[in-house]
């Protein structure tokens, strides 16, 4: 019976012929990663036992076994990262599994032309991630002091009788919160637009709450950029400059990369 196939990534066949795949352990820690040539594309895969890795058991593990998830997520990441240093790679999502080799081959053939375009796009370019964090309290003070809308509101409130002031001040707090959010977005967006000048492409991702990041400050921006090799240093230098200029006001910049180009390998369109 056919076993399951775990797909890590796809590379151009000629690169696979030029550079031998190093010995790498597969997803189950026992088997080895190997190549399957499919026309002008080569798939980097390993085999998995269909009983051990059934749909149900994977769902169960990812939901209930945090240690397993952490270990396997790191395995996927490290493997694809290693491969991305050797080859132009289209990285696949965590746990991309095929029933058998035939179904993998068919899928690759169906998307071959777009995959070849993607290889072309990725050649000589790298994916970088920037997360921007902000200390709300610090920024709040600044927004509160320099905001004409809030100033006007405050002046208006001071004219009111005491009893009314209480409720109006509550409203003012709400207004401050929304002005703060707006300010954070405005600043982050401006930075994003500026950084895009160094990049071929820049995408905005969803931000994560502090329950997930484990940080006290708030994630205000999560952006990914596809950048030409020669521009990376300049891009990071600009981020460093932002960090230097904005540290005092509570902003933090966390750049990471180069990542395998997960965000710029889409060929579903």
């Amino acid at each position: 019976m056919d076993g399951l196939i775990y797909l890590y990534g796809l590379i151009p066949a000629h690169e696979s012929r030029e550079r031998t795949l190093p010995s790498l352990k597969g997803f189950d820690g026992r088997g080895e990663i190997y190549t399957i040539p499919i026309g002008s594309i080569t798939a980097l895969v390993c085999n998995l036992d269909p009983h051990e890795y059934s749909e149900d058991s994977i769902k169960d593990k990812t939901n209930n076994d945090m240690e397993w998830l952490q270990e396997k997520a790191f395995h996927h990441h490290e493997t694809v990262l290693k491969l991305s240093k050797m080859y132009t790679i289209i990285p696949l999502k965590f746990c991309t599994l095929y029933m058998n080799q035939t179904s993998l081959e068919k899928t690759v053939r169906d998307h071959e032309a777009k995959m070849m375009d993607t290889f072309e796009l990725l050649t000589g370019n790298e994916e970088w991630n920037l997360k921007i964090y902000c200390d709300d309290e610090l920024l709040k003070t600044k927004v509160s002091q320099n905001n004409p809308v809030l100033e006007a509101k405050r002046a208006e409130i001071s004219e009111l009788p005491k009893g009314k002031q209480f409720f109006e001040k509550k409203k003012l707090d709400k207004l401050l919160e929304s002005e703060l959010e707006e300010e954070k977005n405005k600043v982050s967006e401006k930075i994003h637009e500026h950084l895009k000048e160094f990049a071929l492409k820049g995408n905005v991702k969803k931000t994560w709450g502090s329950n997930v990041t484990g940080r006290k400050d708030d994630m205000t921006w999560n952006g990914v950029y596809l950048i030409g090799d020669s521009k990376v240093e300049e891009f990071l230098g600009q981020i460093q400059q932002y960090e230097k200029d904005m540290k005092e006001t509570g902003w933090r910049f966390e750049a990471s990369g180069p990542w395998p180009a997960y965000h710029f390998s889409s060929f579903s369109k």
Partner: protein
Amino acid sequence: MSLRETVENKDIALIDILDVILDKGVAIKADLVISIAGVDLVYLDLRLLIASVESLVQAQAGGRKTISSDQFDRQREELIHATGQPDKWKN
């Protein structure tokens, strides 16, 4: 060292990895075993994962407590050493 090398060698948090390999990795949906039932595992998981990652963050925060108690012990020993006082905790 170039900026690039500095950033490249920084430790990466699990959330950064999940953010990338789950949220935006390429999927060729039709043939994923996992989406056979018409459920896209990745989106399904992302929601559940937030809960898991949350508990991981908490577990790590718990781990830090242990470390800080070790640190406290070390600092105590250093203080004893610095003041030349005999160690009251040792018999």
